[in-house]
């Protein structure tokens, strides 16, 4: 019955195609632009470059300092995601499988961090990191990010661990597993999809984080989004070099997104509230 094709179905496919193209084509445009010469700007957004100018990328990487920004982004994102992951794994495990005094209060406190916008944190945070002499260090970009990701990750993994049958844990305890053993040998192997979703979401949020870096990092510590937004001098008006920078910055996110899109979307739909 559902296999019967009605005209509506074709209209739906047609509109879906239009809307999908509308979402994707601007990125194709900027990708093509990143290989063009400024003299080709009038040729139409989707005209192929006359010559594929990789020089734009060299110029962005060296001249416009995208190499430095890229390095900063990697230095910040990898530890920020890994530390948050380990901390959230531990607390999500405790909240999801153990009962203890004050668990509700603690959970509500962590929930608060998910609901409150980052704007409500940034000003005292700036002062705090100044007092700790951490402003203009990578720590100023990593630690607050870890703290926010910890809140989200705790909720995410708590929900996941709650869904794992208690019998499994009981059996492991009978077999002589301690609490670490339960987490590492029993729960972790069952958690790959939940962990992947969490990792890709945290990666995307940390990679794209703007306000925190803008406020805390001086010129040498800027990550890609802030570096791109604050391009100065002749590069600020050179749209092809900017396009190359934008493409370089987007590439890691796009690659991870396309590989893990199933995890990405599941996580985004359920977790987008945090962003």
């Amino acid at each position, binding site marked *: 019955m*559902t296999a019967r094709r009605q005209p*509506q*179905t074709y209209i*739906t*496919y047609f509109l879906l195609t239009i*809307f999908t*193209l*509308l979402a*994707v084509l*601007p*990125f194709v445009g*900027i990708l093509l*632009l990143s290989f063009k010469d400024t003299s080709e700007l009038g040729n*139409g*957004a989707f005209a192929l470059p006359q010559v594929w100018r990789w020089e734009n990328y060299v110029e962005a990487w060296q001249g416009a300092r995208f190499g430095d920004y890229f390095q900063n982004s990697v230095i910040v994102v990898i530890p920020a995601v890994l530390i948050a992951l380990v*901390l959230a794994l*531990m*607390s999500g495990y*405790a909240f999801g*499988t*153990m*009962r*203890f005094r004050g668990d509700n209060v*603690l959970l*509500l406190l962590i929930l608060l*961090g998910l*609901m*409150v*916008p980052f*704007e*409500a944190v940034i*000003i*005292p945070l700036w*002062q705090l990191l100044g007092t700790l002499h951490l402003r203009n260090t990578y720590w100023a970009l990593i630690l*607050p990010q*870890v*703290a926010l990701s*910890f809140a989200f990750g705790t*909720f*995410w993994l708590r*929900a996941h661990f*709650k869904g794992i049958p208690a019998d499994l844990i*009981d059996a492991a305890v*009978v077999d002589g597993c*301690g609490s670490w053993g*339960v987490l590492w040998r029993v729960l972790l192997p069952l958690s790959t999809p939940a962990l992947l979703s969490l990792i890709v979401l945290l990666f995307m949020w940390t990679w794209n984080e*703007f306000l925190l870096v803008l406020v805390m990092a001086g010129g040498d510590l800027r990550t890609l*989004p802030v570096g791109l937004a604050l391009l100065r001098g002749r590069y600020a008006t050179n749209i092809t070099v900017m*396009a190359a920078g*934008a493409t370089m910055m*987007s590439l890691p996110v*796009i690659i991870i*997104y*396309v590989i893990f899109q199933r995890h*990405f979307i599941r996580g*985004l*739909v*359920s977790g*987008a*509230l945090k962003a």
Partner: protein
Amino acid sequence: MAGEIQERGLAVRQPSSLSTRSQSLLARLSGETTLGRRPHARPYQAYLFILPGLLLYLVFVLIPIVNTFRYSFYEWTGFSEPTYIGLDNYTNLFRDKDFWTAISHNFFFVIFYTILPILLGLFLTSLLTRQRLRGMVFFRTGLFIPYVMSPVVVGIIWRWLFALDGPINHVLDAVGLSSVARPWLGDFTFAPYATGLVGTWIEYGLCMVIFIAGAQSINEELYDTAIVFGANAWQQFRYVTLPGLRQQILVAFVITFIAAMRLFDLIFVLTSGGGPGKTTLVTSVLLYTEAFNQNHAGYATSMAVVLTVIILVVSVVVTRLQARSEAEELV
């Protein structure tokens, strides 16, 4: 609340589990953990597992939140000793023209960030009542791309598309509408609409994907029943699809509404922080300028408080609506 909505979001794919989630947040958090039978951890171990993350969270999130509220009652440059001034920041805030301009722009952008994407999503969903779609993976991947990208990159792209000698004006020239062509983002009249459209472009894919997933999981028998009772396509949509999507609409509303309230990165790049003039100025940009360029840190925290309260109130109200719609389902 947010957590509840998140779990609700998780349940988007499995509506059958929705009705089992009808207890209040607290009741559910206190959870009937069956795991307690043979404790695999001593009580203190739970605290040890939570402690390291909680400490970081306390220092870098919780205490700053408390301080934001506290400083909103202080005159403070960010460098000086704060002086207590009672509600002065708030009375100044409500007299501040720029603040009203900014916050009214946030609500103006709700039309583009929230209302239009939800309507577009519903329109598309209305066409596919009970049709199984193939190839959704492909569409879904594409539709989500704008949402995944950094707003900074989105800003760079649309600044190029909207530029005086940019692709949009080229197309207008080509079809003989050169009189319409203009620097869209530099135009006092059109800049807010152009900026808003970028918002719609970011969010519509999200709404479509959420709604389509929801519509595909509506029980087919409901449509059969509706047809037996002589319902036409519109009535099927109005009385079967729309109520079936209530959860998804509320989730989409909260996500996109918060995005409209928190607009920052995109404006920072797209219109260089609110231009031309102040036609696209938004609250977060004003907050940033007051705190970090004007040294009015105390004053800026009062803006952060107002923004936070708006977001919290809307999240809580919507969560209540969700709880109510679930209660109705149970009846």
